[in-house]
């Protein structure tokens, strides 16, 4: 009976954990701290009927920045406009997070994959994919990441993420991926 209850609780808890693990957008900083405090206050001990409470630790701005970048680094993909290879402002922050990390860890190497959507010819798209990967490398190098830490490969239109061949699908496929 108790096992059954536990099982039910797990059924609820596991998807919740999965959801929180998935959230890696820019506002996830606040999500992370609030979920931490709620788990702190929620622990109920089986014996004696006492409950404990707690608060989230006070973070210095540097620590906050570190946590934010940690979250941002979960995002490995930068998307591009059609036939374009410039890094748009919305992805600059993601690249900054990766850049900081690479500067702090000069022994870490990253592979930057460039991809294109399925429009145009495969050979032209290889060139376009390389230009996207290079734009990312140039951005990181501009921050101070060593060229020796980065390598580049273009897969053109050969490895689409989305195979629907719709405008939405094309948008998902026009990307650079950071692979550590």
């Amino acid at each position, binding site marked *: 009976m108790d096992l059954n209850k536990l099982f039910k609780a797990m059924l609820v808890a596991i998807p919740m954990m999965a959801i929180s693990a998935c959230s890696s957008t820019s506002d996830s900083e606040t999500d992370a701290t609030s979920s931490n405090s709620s788990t702190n206050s929620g622990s109920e001990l089986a014996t004696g009927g006492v409950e404990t409470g707690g608060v989230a630790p006070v973070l210095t701005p540097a620590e906050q920045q570190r946590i934010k970048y940690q979250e941002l680094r979960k995002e490995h993909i930068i998307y591009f406009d059609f036939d374009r290879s410039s890094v748009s402002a919305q992805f600059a922050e993601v690249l900054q997070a990766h850049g900081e990390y690479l500067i702090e860890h000069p022994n870490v190497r990253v592979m930057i994959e460039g991809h294109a959507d*399925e429009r145009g010819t495969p050979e*032209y798209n*290889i060139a*376009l994919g*390389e230009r996207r990967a290079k734009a990312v490398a140039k951005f990181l190098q501009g921050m101070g990441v060593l060229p020796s830490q980065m390598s580049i490969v*273009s897969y053109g239109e050969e490895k689409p993420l989305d195979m629907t061949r719709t405008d939405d699908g094309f948008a998902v496929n026009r990307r650079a991926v950071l692979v550590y």
Partner: protein
Amino acid sequence: MKTLGKWLFLGLVVMSMPARAALDIVITEGVDAARPIAVIPFVWQGQGPMPQQISDVVMSDLARSGTFKPLDELSLPQTNISKVSQFVAKDWSNVGAEAVVMGSVKPYGDDQYLVKFELVDLVKAQMQSNAGPQSSNEYLLDSRETVVSLAQFRQYGHRISDIVYEKLTGTRGAFLTRIAYVVVKHGEKSPYHLMISDYDGHNEKMLLRSPEPLMSPSWSPDGSKLAYVSFENKKAEVFIQNIYTQSRAKITSYDGINGAPVFSPDGKKLALTLSKDGQPEIYVVDIETKALKRVTNHYAIDTEASWFKDGKSLIFTSERGGRPQIYKVTLSSGKVERLTFEGEWNLGGSVSPDGRSMIFVNRTNGKFNIARMDLETRFMQVLTSTRLDESPSVAPNGTMVIYGTTYQGKQVLAAVSTDGRFKARLPAGQGEVKSPSWSPFL
């Protein structure tokens, strides 16, 4: 009644499944304009059933050429004849066709068969029959015989089609040719397959399977080797593989792009794209010595080279004008000339075998289609109306283009005649099919 209907339906489904060919050609446009021709089923002169009907191969070849439309066997006034001497011209006076193909197959020893065929000029026969009896040899256009094994039946059928096609059109037939293409079966451990088959999709064979992408297969001028790009080492590298011996040689593996290889007309060099010095540029590499010669030098993308038949110049795609367009470069002088101006983009060009036109991908109003341009007059014609067309490859006789397109959400191969009148689709059995390359004459 209902059950009968169900069984009929099931029967149809089973029948419509491709039995032998992995790529089954569906003619989508252009049968009306084709020239009627009569192909009489070849007469079997052996015991038991005929092992394989060669004339079926001839009939489908002629239909797929877009130039001819074989008549229904049931409408022919004479069948079961194999020689012009058995041909009764007056019986054929009302048949609206220009020629008759007939022949016979006879056992000729262990797994050997004597195949004979004759090609009759029906128009001449009809005219002479009105003028009174004549010697039947007067209207015999061609007559040949050869001994083949059962395994060579299809091949000899294509040979007959080549002869018929050339006799009637003056252009060499391209039926005895192969195509190379890439099949991607997403979800498999090694999804990327380099395949070859006869031009009609029969005799499909796998040359290479890889967990990483394979791209841009391209034939050597003698049809014995393929150059292609493989990412098997997590980077683009150009290989040449012998299709008979399976031996492979790595030709280039520079930093960055190693792509779009094409054999020179003498088979000794490859034109290809390398980005080792920054931007993608066209180079020529000597296959034997691996010596490189840089052809283009521009900060924009240069790629997709194709040779003129004299080996002295190339066409290539360049973004130097802001958008991808096709340019010509003379190898000795390095002089570059822009060829395309119409439409938003023009790319992926190849020179036709006669050197008078080029076939390429044109983008107009955001749509990608196959187009042809006369190099003399610069007249451009869009040939296709399919979706996301790419990778056009011209048949060695210049009459047909095979290309990659999208049909019902999948990448498939399609064909279009270089005049744009005949269109056909080659639906894929499994997976996505792309990057077709038509072999030279075999």
